[in-house]
């Protein structure tokens, strides 16, 4: 059997901050296979973007991988020299960013930016590279590529910029596309267009997608699997269908409850009160306990591990009880 395309094993990342060492990732493991569509969700600071950056070797200088292993095609990247690691990464992975204008070079024409990888990495001729770029532009839905080839990023609309960024990402023919909230900065119609494009790319060319977001609806739309992150750990993983219909971690349960339902008129949206824990301090209890409706004494004394449930995996002492949460919780809300 082939090894997974990417395998992250017990990854830990620490960030040096003014207030001490922040344990941003505290042991995250997962595999990505060709054709997978994985959504990683969590609130700001949960470590979802840092996980992506750690895999892609793009961590800021004050952050460091302090433990765990990352395998690409079965090769341990920590054993590779920087050059070989980058070659391996760029052969298999590409990334699109939240803010397309920041991810495009302001002083290079968009066509040239798309043609750059074919020209300078794959060693194609100038003519060929330009044709590849035009094909890619058509593929990501940039009409009239010939005349837009010579435009600069600031001359394009937000949606087009993100399409250009996707075209650049595809120019190296990657197997997995990492997406760091690529639709967050776009308005909803453009967001829908970009999602449709990603979906098409996935269906037509078997492109794997790892999608980091805090938008559950987007994950539901695009992904097969979901991983919920909280305080630098995965707290629930499983197929989108299972996790969305039967959440087995109180955090996921509350997140789903907080998402607005267009069929129900509500006076006020549900919120999860409190905030995420300070990760510069050692974690001794379940980090979600202070905000959790199901928390008990056990949750204060130790941190639960991510363990397999019937359909999904969950890191909660009370996950067996999940079938009762809906009724318990509604009683509580009434009592309040």
């Amino acid at each position, binding site marked *: 059997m082939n090894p997974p395309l990417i395998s992250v094993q017990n990854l830990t990342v620490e960030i040096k901050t003014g207030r001490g060492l922040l344990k941003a990732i505290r042991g995250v493991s997962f595999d990505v296979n060709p054709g997978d569509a994985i959504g990683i969700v969590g609130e700001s600071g949960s470590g979802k973007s840092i996980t992506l950056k750690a895999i*892609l070797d*793009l961590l*800021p*200088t004050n952050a460091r991988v302090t433990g765990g292993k990352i395998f690409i095609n079965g090769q341990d990247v920590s054993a590779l020299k920087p050059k070989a690691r*980058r*070659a391996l*990464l*760029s*052969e298999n*992975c*590409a*990334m699109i*960013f939240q*803010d397309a204008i*920041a*991810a*495009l*070079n*302001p*002083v*290079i024409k968009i066509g040239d930016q798309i043609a*750059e*990888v074919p020209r*300078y*990495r794959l060693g194609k001729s100038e003519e060929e590279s330009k044709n590849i770029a035009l094909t890619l532009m058509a593929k990501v839905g940039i009409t009239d590529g010939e005349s837009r080839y010579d435009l600069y990023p600031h001359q394009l609309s937000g949606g087009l910029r993100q399409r250009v*960024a996707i075209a*650049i*990402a595809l*120019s*190296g023919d990657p197997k997995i596309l990492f997406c760091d909230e690529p639709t967050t900065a776009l308005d909803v119609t453009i967001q829908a267009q970009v999602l449709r494009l990603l979906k098409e790319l996935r269906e037509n060319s078997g492109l794997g997608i790892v999608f980091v977001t805090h938008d559950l609806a987007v994950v539901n739309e695009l992904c097969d699997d979901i991983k919920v992150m909280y305080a630098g750990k995965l707290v629930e993983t499983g197929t989108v269908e299972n996790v969305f219909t039967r959440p087995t971690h109180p955090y996921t349960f509350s997140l789903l409850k907080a998402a607005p339902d267009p069929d129900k008129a509500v006076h006020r949206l549900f919120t999860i009160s409190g905030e995420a824990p300070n990760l510069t301090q050692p974690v001794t209890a379940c980090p979600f306990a202070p905000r959790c409706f199901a928390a008990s004494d056990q949750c204060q004394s130790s941190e639960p591990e991510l363990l397999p449930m019937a359909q999904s995996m969950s890191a909660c002492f009370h996950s067996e009880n999940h079938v009762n949460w809906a009724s318990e919780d509604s009683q509580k809300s009434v009592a309040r």
Partner: protein
Amino acid sequence: MKSSKTLYVGAGMLGLLALVAIFAPLISHYDPTEQDLMNTLLGPSIHHWVGTDPLGRDVFTRLIYGARVDLAIGLSAVILPYIIGVCLGLLSAWKGGKTDSFIMRIVDTFLAFPFYVLAIALVFIFGPGIKSIIVAITLGGWVAYCRIVRSNVLVAKEQDYIHAARLTGLPDRRILFRHMLPNVISQSIVFAMSDIVLSILAIVSLGYLGLGVPVPTAEWGSMIQEGQPYITQQWWLATVPGLMVVYVGLSLSLIGDGLVARLER
């Protein structure tokens, strides 16, 4: 709108002076080094617009020939340190780690000396002359560019477009010179404008100290020095060359201001 006006006014002022310097032989029929001992220390008149100096040389002619020397050295004394500083700054910030520490310690060493002390010592070692002035200013001047570019690269390095370029597996060379360089040099270009003023000042100061361009070549610094003993009677001898320095300084800082607004979004 206002910024481009500043830019154009500054460029116009400097361009005018450059034209006058280039066409100096057409503007004045005097020789800048020819002495006329019968007509020394004359006041301004129709024949001698700024009078004559103690050796009877026409001061106006010497001023415009001096512009050739001062502008040429000023510019060439910025180009070399600019190239050296920008390259080392790029390298330093991009490589980081030991390379960065090594280059920055060299920078610190140069910064430990006041610029003029360093320049005077170097000119003294190499002997007065245009070449040694340029070498001295280059050795003292590259550190500023190095630091400016380094700090800009450190910021740009964490930008998504550099991350994106790195991830697509482009060669380092390509990323550095095509993606990074155009986005990090604007500040250093602006600084170069004011640095030309500084190097012209340095040339003038060295000339004043007798370490500049050898006599009898016309040069503003040595003209100020030569005019100084006559400051109470023939005040224009030292004052007008000084005003020329002010004029060049003003035009360059106008250009610099205009460029700031243009290049820095």
